[in-house]
């Protein structure tokens, strides 16, 4: 699940524009393209301003093309489906769920991005390309990524307890125990929002079961009652079931929303020492004036049983509904490092584009999480976002609800079979 709030300090717009100019290759032929491109996307607020800056960068190179962006926020799937049903889809759209790309492509509603294949191959890794491909054909450009394998902690809380950022799972549990000994609960858990629990599960599962099983579980080729799922749940309960180590215990966690869980950690007087969520965490904090590295810091999700560096990603994909030279030019531009650099400099953005220099990121922590994302040997997209919504993304049912119940009852077998029966229904 995405959490769309801008992250990190915003870099100056001027710097972004300079970057746009500095990119070469704007040949004279580009100016010949003209027309209008309509775009609907999930990016709102600060993110909307950032995509507008990217569009402005595009406009510099293609003065003849006007791109109009409309934000549909979290309602993007509904808006796109109604527009498609009414026969008036936008030219281009940015969606948060790869499953939606698959659905649209299978219904023949998308135009393939074969024209951009060269650029995409050159700039993106195989994982990014695979995410946008349906049956071997490129339909989506994985434009904006989120690194969901990060843990954010309060520097002072770690210092008071005398613990170091853990590198392995046992170190994490030991650190948590020591932090509790110092008098502060270790984990802030946003149990009121089921998607945070699915993210935790996915991180554990990717490390314990490995990418092959992760993919099989995603497609429901193995059952949720598989021993690998139960093993991951057992480890998960070591964190979510550690009721003395959660502010308000597990019942308190179930009433804690994601922004509150962030505030419990990123605060001058913390209520908990760490929050396990993606690189968008600092953007959510309401306490102003906290300094990265000094007041809060980040470490990658710990390795389990010697697992290789792995990243669970989230992110948004750009697709094309109507083919036109203008739309092609725009998508090709988005696939270039220039476009991503503009947004990277503004902050709150991690690019899966390998050609985006790490120096483009505005602060050290973003740079670190972006580097981890690009360098990860194993990288998989958020599993719940790949599932049918009834199972992977609906409040009060499916994965979200079942993992919330698991937070309370810690019943591994019961949870595995509840997940299986819910998944079986959704995949029917």
């Amino acid at each position, binding site marked *: 699940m995405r959490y769309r709030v801008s992250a990190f300090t915003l870099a100056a717009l001027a710097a972004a524009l300079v970057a746009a100019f500095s990119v070469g290759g704007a040949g004279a032929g580009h100016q010949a393209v003209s027309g209008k491109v309509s775009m609907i996307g999930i990016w709102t607020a600060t993110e909307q301003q950032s995509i507008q800056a990217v569009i402005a960068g595009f406009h510099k190179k293609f003065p003849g093309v006007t791109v109009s962006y409309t934000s549909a926020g979290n309602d993007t*799937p509904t808006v796109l489906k109604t527009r498609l*049903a009414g026969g008036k889809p936008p030219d281009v759209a940015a969606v948060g769920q790869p499953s939606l790309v698959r659905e649209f492509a299978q219904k023949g509603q998308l135009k393939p991005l074969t024209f951009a294949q060269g650029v995409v191959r050159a700039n993106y890794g195989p994982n990014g390309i695979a995410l946008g491909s349906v049956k071997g054909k490129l339909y989506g450009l994985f434009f904006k990524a989120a690194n969901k394998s990060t843990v954010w902690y309060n520097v002072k809380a770690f210092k008071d307890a*005398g613990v170091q950022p853990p590198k392995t799972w046992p170190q994490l549990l030991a650190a948590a*125990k*020591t932090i509790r*000994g*110092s*008098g*502060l609960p270790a984990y802030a858990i946003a149990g009121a929002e089921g998607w945070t629990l699915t993210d935790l599960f996915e991180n554990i599962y990717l490390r314990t079961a490995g990418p092959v099983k992760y993919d099989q579980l995603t497609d429901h080729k193995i059952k949720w009652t598989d021993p690998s799922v139960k093993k991951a749940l057992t480890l998960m309960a070591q964190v979510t079931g550690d009721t003395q180590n959660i502010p308000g215990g597990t019942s308190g966690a179930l009433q804690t929303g994601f922004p509150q869980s962030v505030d419990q950690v990123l605060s001058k007087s913390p209520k908990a020492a760490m929050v396990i969520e993606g690189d968008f965490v600092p953007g959510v904090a309401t306490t102003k004036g906290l300094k990265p590295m000094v007041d809060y810091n980040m470490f990658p999700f710990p390795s389990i049983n010697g697992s290789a560096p792995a990243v669970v990603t989230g992110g948004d994909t750009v697709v094309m509904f109507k083919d036109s030279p203008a739309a092609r030019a725009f998508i090709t531009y988005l696939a270039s490092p220039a476009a991503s650099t503009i947004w990277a400099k503004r902050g709150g953005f991690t690019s899966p584009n390998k050609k985006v220099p790490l120096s483009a990121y505005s602060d050290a922590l973003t740079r670190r999480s972006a580097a981890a994302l690009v360098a990860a040997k194993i990288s998989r997209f958020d599993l719940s976002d790949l599932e049918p919504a009834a199972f992977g993304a609906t409040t009060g049912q499916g994965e979200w609800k079942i993992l919330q119940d698991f937070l309370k009852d810690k019943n591994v077998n019961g949870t595995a079979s509840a997940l299986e029966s819910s998944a079986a229904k959704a995949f029917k």
Partner: protein
Amino acid sequence: MTEATVRAEPPAEELGAPPEAWFGLRRYAVTAAFLAPAFILLGVWVVYPAVYTIIRSFYGQAGGDFVGIDNYKALFTTPAITTAIKNNAIWVAVVPATITAIGLVFAVLIEKISWSLAFKTAVFMPMAISLFAAGVIWRIMDRQEPGIGAVNAVIGSVHDAIRPPGALSDALTSTPNETGSPSQGIVLKTPLQPGKSVALVGLTGIPPEQVPAGSVQAVTPPAKAGSITGVVWRDFKPGGGVPGKVEQGEVGLPNVTVFLRDASGKKVGTATTEANGTFAFTDLDQGTYRAGIDPATFKKPFGGVSWLGSKLITPSIMIAYIWVWAGFSMVVIAAGLSAIPRDTLEAARTDGASEWQVFRRVTVPLLAPVLTVVFITMVINVLKVFDIVLSVAPESSQAEANVIALAMWRTAFPQSDFGLGSAIAVFLFILVIPVLLLNIRRFRREA
């Protein structure tokens, strides 16, 4: 409309009767012209969507496949929806009657007080807030942490006044040698012998700000003949330290009451710790003893009732809903009450009826039509209840709080299953119809 046309007729006749047929046509055209805007609006926004919803409910998720009554079967087999139906039944059973009763009581009582206007205004005020906003207010008031939720803050202040929390409410045991739990009191497993053993009671989990003022570096006291000595200390230093060992940088916990039991379990004495955490029981006979700390020391402050948890969520939402609608009910009933002939009440009183009898046998029967209006309006509202459920219940308990309208929205939008969503909408519509018919029949009778 019919009424208006009837009134328009006499002047038309005075103008000198036009031919019957032409007149009929003109009258028809005028009527149609007046009705057209309403018809078009109703057609586009009510009739067409309603008919399309019914048609759509027989198609599958994607829309192209006719599935017959499968969606209606799914209504009663999908757990989320059956919970919703069950909850709606509870809502209908509890809420309209409660709102009507509260309204009636308020309406009758405010007749007797001089500041009735102020009272009426206060009770009616929630009606001025949107239902969603009212839900948000209650969501905050119902929060579990007494520091945030007003309801638990009230309960908590009473609770903590009667049973004050202990000085070390967050403490945990530091070694497996300490048994029991903070809630039952901590007892050392190893039996102690006077002159031989030293009782080490290490505690962790105490935030620095909870360490009692005046505490100093803890020390392990030496064993003393005829006595049992020991220390209670904060067994933590940055990095954790060695559990069960008094180390440099770990402070004693003063003013902790330690008790001593003999082999038979009889309490033989209590001692209070010094600034460095040490305590001593002197003049003891030979034998084995056990030392421990009273549970009162660890007594947690009131943790709050989980109003928004999965068990209490529906009652919590109902309370919020009743809070909003009681004002409406009171005002309508009060209006009805003022229309009751006073002489009937007086006659009853003269005949020696008690106030309760007057209320039961005279006021309520006379008010029956008004009470019915309130009750039926509330039944319809409650069947369609939606926004307050969404705003009071946190996501983690929305499954338990689910109602039909919410299930419809969730099925149709986040999941894009318009077929099943339409079926739920039609089902809800069917539930409302009998109540509507009842209401229409009553209107007719009154007219």
